[in-house]
């Protein structure tokens, strides 16, 4: 049993890393919802592949699904290009249609085929260890593990080979076009990669959770770094962490593994969203508070300097006056004075604030800046 659990975890990790690295480019290109569209539309590709190949394990299923993924992207692009509807609507028009055709085909066939909508939408990773890959009588582990590792390697090879092209066409498509990089080619290659990844992953986690694995880890990584290569690594790590965490939660509560993997993705994203050092919600709030305080300290220094050696200086430099002068709350005023004193910029001599040499210098710099 231990062995089977380990295999499920390995499949989950391979799936989420493969999804995460492909998803990085979707998130950066503002095409995140193409993962939603493609993961639904590949149902049609799988059905067509099945009709031609006549077998649920036929490689035609994967080819069909990948082709439909590219068709989805192409149709969406074509409809958007007409300028008659916006991109979001174009996506919303294309994938329900393809999905519906798939559903209709399935229900026309049902009875003699074991292929139902539920299994495509939901997937069941827990069954992964039962389908083995056997070559010449030797057991090479679960089939889906082999498939996902192959897809992961393919994605890695794609990103390494076309890193420069991907980077340029993602961040500056016009420059990429001007330099002759054929952004559309990269675009369709990327769509093909996303489709293949989605096909491989849907078997394990179902189509909707493919979306979670493709979007959440890159979105989290996006909040943590400005570098593309770092973002890919972080996304992969977040994906792997969600897979392991998700499996652990599922095991603990005895619930759907795929569902808790998606929930773990969401939980990790939430943590990053709240606590990321640069762009997290809390650190942004802290930064705003600090900036406000620092600005106030500057105001105080300038104020003290303006009135230094003037007849009214004694009145102007009493802390009580600051509340009136700057319309600061008493608590805030005390904080500002304390901060300035801590920084060694002013001296608080019983109700009389005076600049230290450092403070005078700082005020001078602020004025002349």
């Amino acid at each position, binding site marked *: 049993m231990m062995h089977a659990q380990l295999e499920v975890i390995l499949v989950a990790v391979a799936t989420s890393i493969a999804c995460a690295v492909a998803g990085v480019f979707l998130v950066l290109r503002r095409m995140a*919802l193409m993962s939603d569209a493609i993961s639904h539309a590949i149902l049609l590709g799988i059905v067509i592949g099945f009709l031609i190949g006549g077998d649920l394990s036929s490689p035609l299923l994967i080819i069909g699904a990948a082709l439909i993924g590219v068709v989805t992207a192409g149709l969406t692009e074509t409809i958007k290009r007409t300028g008659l509807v916006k991109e979001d609507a174009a996506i919303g028009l294309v994938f329900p249609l393809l999905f519906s055709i798939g559903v209709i085909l399935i229900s026309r066939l049902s009875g003699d085929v074991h292929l139902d909508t539920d299994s495509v939408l939901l997937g069941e990773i827990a069954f992964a260890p039962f389908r083995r890959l056997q070559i010449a009588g030797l057991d090479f582990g679960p089939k889906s593990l082999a498939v996902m590792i192959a897809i992961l390697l393919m994605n890695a090879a794609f990103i390494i080979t076309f890193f420069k092209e991907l980077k340029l066409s993602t961040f500056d498509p016009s420059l990429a076009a001007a330099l002759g990089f054929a952004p559309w080619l990269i675009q369709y290659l990327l769509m093909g990669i996303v489709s293949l990844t989605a096909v491989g992953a849907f078997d394990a986690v179902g189509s909707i*959770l493919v979306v979670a694995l493709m979007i959440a880890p890159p979105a989290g990584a996006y909040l943590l770094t400005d570098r593309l290569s770092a973002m890919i690594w972080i996304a992969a790590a977040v994906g792997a962490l969600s897979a392991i965490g998700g499996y652990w939660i599922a095991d603990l509560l005895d619930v759907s593994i795929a569902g808790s993997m998606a929930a773990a993705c*969401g939980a990790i994203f939430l943590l990053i969203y709240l606590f990321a050092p640069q762009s997290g919600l809390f650190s942004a709030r802290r930064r705003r508070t600090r900036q406000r305080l620092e600005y106030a300290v500057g105001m105080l220094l300038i104020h003290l300097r303006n009135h230094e050696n003037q007849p009214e200086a004694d009145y102007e430099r009493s802390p009580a006056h600051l509340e009136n002068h700057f319309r600061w709350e008493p608590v805030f005023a005390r904080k500002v004075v304390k901060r300035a004193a801590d920084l060694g910029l002013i001296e608080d001599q019983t109700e009389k604030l005076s600049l230290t040499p450092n403070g005078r210098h700082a005020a001078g710099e602020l004025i002349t800046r």
Partner: protein
Amino acid sequence: MVALGSSLLGLVSGLLGSFAFLRRQSLLGDAVSHAALPGIALAYLLTRDKSPLILLIGAAMAGWLASYLVTHIASHSRVKYDAALGLVLSVFFGIGLMVLSFLQKQPDSGQAGLDRFLFGQASAMSADDITTISIIGGLSVIALLLLWKEIKIFIFDEGFAGVIGYSANKIDKILTSLIVVAVVVGLQIAGVVLMSAMLVAPAAAARQWTNGLKPMVLLAGFLGMLSGLAGSTVSGLVPRLPTGPAIVICLSFAVAVSLLFAPGRGLVWNLFARWRNRQSLRRETILIDLLEMARGHDSIEHGHSLAVLKLMYPEIRGLRGLLADLEKEGYVVKKGSSEWALTPAGAEKAAAFAERIEAKQ
């Protein structure tokens, strides 16, 4: 029964979807419909009650929370709207699956039927469902009518709406709530994927035919209703044709026709308009050139052979037909076997064209 319910649902979602479409939030319905799942499952887990009202309230609350989160993430971080939407949609759905699978393992296994909310089951529509749709649809229409002016300004110029004192935030919340309610009601009939089509497609089709908000909303409602009716009728006639997908096919057909043939915007319409423009330009060119050439001769009605004209306009195919048309209108006349010349009326027309061109220059 099914046809009535489907067309009512189509009507309501067409009306409300128009606003999401115009605000470029077409996929909000998609997000809300996926996000409703944990709401339904949790509502059942907490109350152990499967009455539609409680489940609908759970779904609506989850859908509302999801749309709030999408907006919050998109406006408070560098993560864009599309990624925020996909993230919330899939994570909520995952949580829903978790709860659902937890319920499945409970001994009483009373969750049966909850997944009806996931995939939709139009054929299982009851009179109660129709009553629910009618009440909710009616309420949404009343809300739309009451807030029509505010919503209109908000959609087309959010900043202006704020300046003249409407609370953009409030209108945004009302619109979102209306969409959430429509999605949640439609979910159990159309299913997750098809519900998003029900919101987007009628609006996308209606938009092509008109530039006015009122006609667009009405037309979207009508198209939604028609597709609902057509889809459910067809699926009733053909065995093993599920209703939801049939409705989506009808909707997509309406969209395709609109994108191609709508006057003023449609693709075919535009092609035709371009062709007509080019033809009238060519007619002008031929008349003016004939006049210019004839001026070098004794009479304004001096003829020129077709071979010469063909050499002059190598890009015009169907030159003979064009000349024949002009002859029918009395501007040119055929002289001999293959010579063409202006008539006095044609010369006058050509001079007028030439004058107009010079005036423009």
